[in-house]
């Protein structure tokens, strides 16, 4: 197991190198606005631009620039500075990462619990009114874009602009202090972000559970004289939930790179918001940094999921 994890981590390092190279090439080779011009202010002289270009190292050849980027990254864990405001990208990201984590983990708990619960109810009551109702609702939740759902939620429930003043609205998170106050401002973002995920998980668990309930070992469990509730939860759901946990790990990893739409709609200062602003301003070094964080999070979460799998399914061995 330890050897397996080590091997996977080495692969992860290699993967990250490839990802930095690819993003480097994409943003420097493709026209995405000249960072030097961006910095130079209004109607600069060609000399000023050249000077800035030199100071940012942009006049060097692409491989040299890449090499210097990697060297700083590996030796000093330095992602370079933002082209827009010259702040270290590392600081920009790590200031915002806790906000993204708070948003994502809170939402993940909600969508996982809701998805599993709805999935079980639908599978057990297959074909009933509740099954149709819940699966129909799931389809709506999957189809609704997050930014639309977010705006509708704000319009209806925000305590500043909403029809009913129920939950704190956009931007409230920034001014909140303390765990519970921050959590309260996140209720709407959590629900909005969870909706589509909960729906997908519910459908996934429902179909897994229906398949599991026709397995031979479920018949065995019934033949033992177990209560149906125990048959479903201990024997059925135990098997049906395993693939859902895999998906959960990867989804959390992906969202660690920023829940861009949710963070933007609700004005939460997270990694997603940072990426959004960086993309708008052509701030290549920041984009590079957030891309790396996203890749790292996905790689680590998929490793976590694979290791976890060995505990969930005793047949899996590394």
């Amino acid at each position, binding site marked *: 197991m330890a050897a397996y994890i080590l091997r996977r981590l080495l692969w992860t390092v290699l993967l990250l190198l490839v990802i930095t190279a690819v993003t480097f090439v994409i943003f420097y080779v493709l026209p995405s606005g000249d960072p030097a011009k961006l910095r130079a202010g209004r109607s600069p002289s060609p000399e000023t631009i050249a000077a800035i270009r030199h100071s940012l190292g942009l006049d060097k050849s692409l491989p040299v620039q890449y090499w210097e980027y990697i060297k700083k990254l590996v030796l000093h864990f330095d992602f370079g500075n933002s082209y827009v405001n010259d702040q270290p990208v590392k600081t920009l990201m790590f200031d915002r990462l806790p906000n993204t984590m708070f948003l994502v983990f809170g939402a993940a708990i909600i969508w996982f619990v809701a998805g599993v619960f709805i999935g079980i109810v639908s599978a057990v009551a297959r074909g009933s009114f509740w099954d149709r109702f819940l699966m129909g609702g799931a389809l709506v939740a999957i189809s609704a874009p997050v930014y639309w759902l977010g705006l509708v939620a704000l319009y209806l429930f925000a305590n500043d602009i909403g029809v009913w003043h129920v939950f704190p609205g956009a931007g409230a998170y920034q001014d909140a202090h303390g765990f519970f106050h921050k959590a309260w401002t996140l209720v709407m973002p959590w629900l909005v972000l969870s909706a589509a995920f909960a729906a997908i998980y519910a459908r996934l668990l429902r179909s897994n559970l229906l398949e599991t309930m026709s*397995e*031979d*070992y479920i*018949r*065995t*469990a*019934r*033949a*033992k*004289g*177990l*209560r149906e509730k125990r048959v479903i939860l201990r*024997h059925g759901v*135990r*098997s049906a939930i395993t693939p859902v946990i895999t998906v959960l790990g990867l989804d959390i990893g992906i969202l660690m790179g920023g829940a861009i739409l949710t963070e933007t709609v609700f004005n939460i200062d997270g990694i997603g918001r940072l990426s959004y602003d960086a993309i708008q301003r052509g701030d290549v070094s920041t984009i590079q940094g957030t891309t790396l964080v996203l890749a790292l999070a996905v790689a680590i979460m998929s490793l976590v999921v694979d290791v976890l799998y060995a505990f*969930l*399914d*005793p*047949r899996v061995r590394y």
Partner: protein
Amino acid sequence: MAEPLLQVEDLRVHFETEDGVVKAVDGVSYTVDAGKALGIVGESGSGKSVSSMTVMGLTRASNAHITGRILFDGKDLLAASDDEMRAVRGGQIAMIFQDPLSSLHPFYRVGDQLVEARRVHHDESKAQARDRAIEMLSLVGIPDPRRRVDSYPHEFSGGMRQRVMTAMALINDPKLLIADEPTTALDVTVQAQILELIQKLQHELDTAVVMITHDLGVVAEVAEEIAVMYAGRIVEKGHADTIFAEPEHPYTWGLLNSIPRLDTPRDQELVPIPGRPPSLITRPPGCSFAPRCPYVREAHRRVDPVLASAEGADHTVACLLPSQTRRALWSRLRAGASPEEAKEAVNIPETLSESAPKEGEEVTSA
């Protein structure tokens, strides 16, 4: 003589489906005495599994219509509530299944699965139940049970898994063990071991056994009584010796002639039963076996046969051929004749057997 342990009377299990009503079991009656073994033999879809799943109360569904009586230890299981049924299930009637790998939960240690089975029916601590589990594993011949109790199902071989299943089924000292094709998924060499084990436990623990199989060789090993099922009904029933020596139903003859035997000449060909079992939705009128029967007469397609006494004690058969014709045919077949040769040699009359209901008469009970 004492009351039989299990008494199934005119059991009918009909499932309503989109294609029509599937009459999976259509008027089946049999009894099992305490400590004895009954073999139920038949092809896939003959209703042999459904009838025993019904005894376990596992076919209860909104689309299932179950009628008849299942008396177990004097109690009618069809009238029992779900809670009462759960107490019987696994406690007094236990079951083992065809594929021991898929029948054990892959994620739980076998010990935990045995402990769970024990604790449903006994108010015991986990430690007590675990000791009992180890004892049972040892009884079914799992080597080093103290260590193996913590293994997962995939860490056992097929035969060992079936031993584990058997240990789990018998952990509550049930009065009846239903074994549904327990050896079908196993290697031939292992099959014999499992049959021996079941027989050994039947005698040691005084457990009655219902052995469901398509393989007459399997029931020959284990069962004292044999019931042959076809298309949801029992077509022949009797002592094992009688069924093997003096069978009177053409379907039973077909089953016997389609098993390879070591004591027949090598050039003698196996005779498969032609055709397929009938649809259980639109059962043909008359004898269900008529479309596949080499000795069929016109009247057999109109009259439903009923189980009636045949030669030998407690021997019943549902066949429209007159009894002396049946015996004449079987004596040819036993001597090695093919069904065609036997048909040539014996004059098969158009008249029906003495026990057959009159034409047009409605038959309600088999």
